[in-house]
């Protein structure tokens, strides 16, 4: 018998799955080339879901449902809300692009996006190893299909195969790690795993063995060095609209899954995974930033930039362990959450401009394609510049506060290791500033390669302006979002 509370945790997911099917069916009757009807339906669905999640989140209660298999808490609900909005924005930006490239011959893109969002939701709220895994698979399978949506395009197909092979391997890693932990603890329930591990009566080697595989699997999904090889190729090869789909909202889900697995499940092993994360973070910052310098393709550059940004997210996650004090721990995780959210916001804006510059028969992929954008369209150049400064961590953009809060969580009085890591991270973000500035340079200092003005539909224009303004406004007034992340994490940790 499923109790009433269980249903509450699953309403948004149910709406998603029903609407995904309805939209797939309805799309058969849609004849317009840009599929306005199904597009509108999808956006409406996403808006309802986002509003529902926001309402749950602001209520702030924690429910466990379906025999503890899923959890609905403030952190999860906010992340789901943001993920739904991110997918919505992705669709707004991506629709004209997809339409010009024959990706809207059927309405699959909407259905697949809804299914991948459903996957993210399940990942975010899973409280059970298998549920998490199922969510992950639903997300990635939809994403593989999305990457391969331009099946006549060799590059996209190649990217899809790479993504599939490496993604399957990562899932395998994760599943293997989960099975080790299941073998050791005898349960798949995360709360029960936590209890079993913290009892201290299990063999440490087995747990660590499982942990290594879990961290490796998560590393793949977050895209951190040395599990990053798929990111540049997939980012570059996938149609840009799909790249945004992969690089945006799923980061929120990957973050939530990391929190569920490592913090809620395996916190007693924190000293072990902290060291692993530290290595991953250092390597990501180093390789992500250095490799990004050499890129001339902007999608590849952004791919390497993602890798380095995820390094910062990991720093926030590992910083929580060092202190041991509950408040400082909550601060650290919430700084990571703030980082991910602001990163996704900025990425949306960046790709939004990128998609705008791609016209029929022309892929805007090289950094040089941005040349003189300021003369062609000061508005979009401004949005892009704000996003670039934000990614570089220059105040007063939101990206600065993300870096600030992560560094603040990291630096502990009297701890030279954390201080050196902070200085290292700061040095790396200086290198990062170089390649982000280069994009600004190309837009503002170089002469335009074409005099054509940039045309955008009114929906794209409005959303892009709001997006760019948010990067700046959240930089001027970051307090609200910070408090939101902080409350959500504190509630999740039960402090």
């Amino acid at each position: 018998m499923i109790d009433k509370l269980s249903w509450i945790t699953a309403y948004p997911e149910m709406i998603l799955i029903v609407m995904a099917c309805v939209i797939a069916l309805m799309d058969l009757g849609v004849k317009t080339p840009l599929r306005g009807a199904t597009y509108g339906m999808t956006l409406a669905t996403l808006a309802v879901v986002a509003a529902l999640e926001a309402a749950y989140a602001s209520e702030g209660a924690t429910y466990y449902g379906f025999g503890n298999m899923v959890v609905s808490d403030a952190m999860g609900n906010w992340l789901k809300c943001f993920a739904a909005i991110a997918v919505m924005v992705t669709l707004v930006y991506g629709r004209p692009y997809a339409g010009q490239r024959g990706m809207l011959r059927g309405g699959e893109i909407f259905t697949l996006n809804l299914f991948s969002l459903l996957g993210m939701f399940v990942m975010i709220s899973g409280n059970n190893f298998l549920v998490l895994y199922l969510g992950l698979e639903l997300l990635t399978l939809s994403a593989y299909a999305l990457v391969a949506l331009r099946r006549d395009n060799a590059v996209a197909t190649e990217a899809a195969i790479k993504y599939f092979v490496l993604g399957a391997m990562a899932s395998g890693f994760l599943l293997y790690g989960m099975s080790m932990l299941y073998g050791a603890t005898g349960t798949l329930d995360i709360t029960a795993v936590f209890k079993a591990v913290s009892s201290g009566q299990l063999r440490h080697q087995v747990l660590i063995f499982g942990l290594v595989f879990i961290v490796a699997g998560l590393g793949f999904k977050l895209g951190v060095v040395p599990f990053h090889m798929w990111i540049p190729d997939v980012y570059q090869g996938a149609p840009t609209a799909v790249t945004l789909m992969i690089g945006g909202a799923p980061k929120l889900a990957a973050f939530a899954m990391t929190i569920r697995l490592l913090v809620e499940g395996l916190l007693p092993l924190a000293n072990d995974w902290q060291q692993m994360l530290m290595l991953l973070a250092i390597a990501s910052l180093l390789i992500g930033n250095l490799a990004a310098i050499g890129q001339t393709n902007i999608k590849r550059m952004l791919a390497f930039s993602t890798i380095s940004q995820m390094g910062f997210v990991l720093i926030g996650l590992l910083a929580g362990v060092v202190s041991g004090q509950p408040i400082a721990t909550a601060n650290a995780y919430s700084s990571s959450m703030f980082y991910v959210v602001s990163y996704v916001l900025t990425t949306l804006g960046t790709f939004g401009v990128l998609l705008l510059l791609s016209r029929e028969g022309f892929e805007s992929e090289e950094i040089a394609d941005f040349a003189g954008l300021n003369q062609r369209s000061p508005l979009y150049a401004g949005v892009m510049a704000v996003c670039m400064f934000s990614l570089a961590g220059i105040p007063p953009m939101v990206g600065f506060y993300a870096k600030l809060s992560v560094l603040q969580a990291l630096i502990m009085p009297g701890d030279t290791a954390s201080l050196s890591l902070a200085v290292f991270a700061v040095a790396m973000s200086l290198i990062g500033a170089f390649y982000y500035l280069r994009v600004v340079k190309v837009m503002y200092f170089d002469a335009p390669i074409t005099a054509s003005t940039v045309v955008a539909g009114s929906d794209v224009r409005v959303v892009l302006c709001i997006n760019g303004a948010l990067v700046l406004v959240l930089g001027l007034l970051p307090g609200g979002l910070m408090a939101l992340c902080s409350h959500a994490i504190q509630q999740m940790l039960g402090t």
Partner: protein
Amino acid sequence: MGMLSLAIWTPIAFGVVLLALGNDEQAKASRWVAFIGALVSFLITLPLYGQFDTTSAAMQFVENAPWIERFHINYHLGLDGISFWFVLLTAFINLVVVIAGWEAITSRVNQYMGAFLILSGLMIGVFCALDGMLFYVFFEATLIPMYLIIGIWGGPNKIYAAFKFFLYTLLGSLLMLVALIYLYTQSNGSFELSTWYALPLGKTAQTLLFFAFFAAFAVKVPMWPVHTWLPDVHVEAPTGGSAVLAAIMLKLGAYGFLRFSMPIVPDASHEWAGMMIALSLIAVVYVGLVAMVQQDMKKLVAYSSVAHMGFVTLGFFMFNQIGMSGGLVQMIAHGFVSGAMFLCIGVLYDRVHSRQIADYGGVVNTMPKFAAFALLFSMANCGLPGTAGFVGEWMVILGGVKFNFWIGLIAASALIFGAAYTLWMFKRVYLGAIGNDHVKELLDINAREFLMLALLAGAVLYMGVYPKPFTDVMDASVAQLLKQVAVSKLN
């Protein structure tokens, strides 16, 4: 809204309006909006002078409101005698620069003017901020408009200069960011400067913090040997950019020493004062000599800026009243004089499109009015009594003699180099027979240029003849700072 908030946000609001609504077709309207914005921004800073209590060392016009509560960052503004004049100076220079860019800038006028207005608001914010993080946000944010100003409207090698400017200064400030966060954790979660002033710190921590601040501020001043970005950037920057850079931006660094390094880490400041004095003297003497051999006028004035800023840091780190006040007076005077020098070069450059000294000669024959102004500013740059340049240098030298006779002597003898390179440039550019056909065809300055130079000339002479209003404002705060620095923070 408090007066300081108005002073900060008025130019920024005008700048944003210009960016949002202006376009290339409405260049004229953009200019006028910018002029009105700059004028209003300057006028609203004037009442500050009437209301400022010179007898008090406390912060005045204080505004304090929570900004980011999670980190206890406050929107905390205030002025004391140290920061007071820079607010007015910034607003004043901004007005002059807007007038200076009137005809020289023809493309993307609204963006040019908007960038300067926003920059001016941000720099006023730096001088007003009493919260460490607020200071940092303003301090860093100034990089963005300046980067764009250099990169869009700069000379042939502008991209190199823009990147060098941005990355060089960012490197220093990022280390300061780590220092600020360290202080935040040490003080149990506060970015308040006043809390940090009272925070006891160990010797190692003080040394590390001192060098983190040094990285940020010495690059900005710039002190020898991290001054190498300045000549490159000045040469490529548009005239207005150079003027603001020399007149205000360099002061952010020197101001940082007074607001952060000295009161927060007094023991380390004393310990490393010898190094600071040595670096300052090298800047004064060696960079002065370097200036002498420059072929490019802007480069010459850039090196002369480094030398003059050497006087400032020299005055600060001798820890006596007259030296420190002298350093501050020198900062203000240099703001007027270097701004004026760069604007003069801009006047010539707009006509001949060359900054090489060799391309000129006998300009006085064709531009007598302009040459008179140039002579005044050159004299002020040498530190001639009766001009603004004299007061600060003289006070620093007095402080130097008081501190150690030989340091005073070296500093005083460096004045000779200053006179040498400035006057030699003046002679080669303005005096003598008409050098070439370009000079022959020069037209004297128009009313707009006259207004802009007259404003600065008035300030230079007023400050030179009657510096009392400037020093009066500073005295109490400088005395208070010296008292603060004299108390050890080692338990």
